[in-house]
């Protein structure tokens, strides 16, 4: 079943707010081999001018994930998760994520393209802080493999 082309342009309601925990930042940092003290040590982070430990540049994927789950659950999307391959990924930040941030992500499907039997769905999740200020935009292209 091909991906529904009418998904293009669809906006989703904001996902539930995500509270960034200090230990979560440290756990994620260890998992991506991040050894900068600014990722782990509150004093080092404060000395560098940050409010708390700073998350690695790809941490936003944890928050974005909740919006992608909304997309995959969309009843008319036609996206079979077992056929999804991650095509590309981008993070464009206004500022780094730090422990203590309360983040809200909102997904828009920016494009749906068909390439032979495959579909390419590009989804953009805009992540804002509790004050409504932009923090980071996470853009993913999911390749949905068609029947071989």
């Amino acid at each position, binding site marked *: 079943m091909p991906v529904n082309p009418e998904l293009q342009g669809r906006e989703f309601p904001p996902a539930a707010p995500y509270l960034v925990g200090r230990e*979560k930042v440290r*756990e*994620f940092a*260890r*998992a*991506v*081999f*991040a*050894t*900068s*003290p*600014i*990722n782990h040590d509150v004093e*080092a982070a404060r*000395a*560098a001018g*940050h409010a708390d430990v*700073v*998350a*690695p*540049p*790809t941490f936003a*994927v*944890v928050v974005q*994930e909740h919006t992608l789950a909304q997309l995959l659950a969309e009843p008319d999307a036609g996206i079979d998760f*077992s056929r999804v*391959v*991650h*095509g*590309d*990924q*981008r*993070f*464009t*930040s206004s*500022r*780094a994520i730090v422990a203590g941030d309360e983040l809200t992500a909102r997904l828009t499907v920016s494009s749906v393209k068909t390439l032979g039997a495959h579909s390419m769905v590009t989804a953009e999740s805009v992540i804002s802080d509790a004050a409504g200020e932009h923090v980071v935009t996470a853009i993913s292209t999911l390749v949905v493999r068609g029947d071989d």
Partner: protein
Amino acid sequence: MTQANQTPDFDALAVGEVVAERHVHLTRDALVRYAGASGDFNPIHYRDDVAASVGLPGVLAHGMLTMGLAVQPVVDWAGDPARVADYQVRFTRPVVVDPEQGADVAISAKIGQLDAEARTARVDLTVTFEGATVLGKAQVRVVLA
């Protein structure tokens, strides 16, 4: 521990200069750790039987794990993870992680472009596994102002 908060001198940089290189040895433990930290529990990243059943050559590292670890040499060079303003990759080839031998990923970070007005550097990453590139168009924009 790496020393934090020492920003490279923008004016001393040149396009083509290699600013960081690193090898990372990935094991199955690393994949399980990333699964837990990220919440991506797709079994192709820890179960050989599931990977085989969907036609994969073996258990694969999460693309987002490869993306996440590949930027770390740049973070250490830049002195602060907050200096990364933009980071993009294309996932071109999977990293197969052998249950016993693991997988060695090599990272090389080179200055691709310099914007003197914004004092930002575009750092281009070459990330290889078994001699082949696994990430395409891997670019990091770093603010050095």
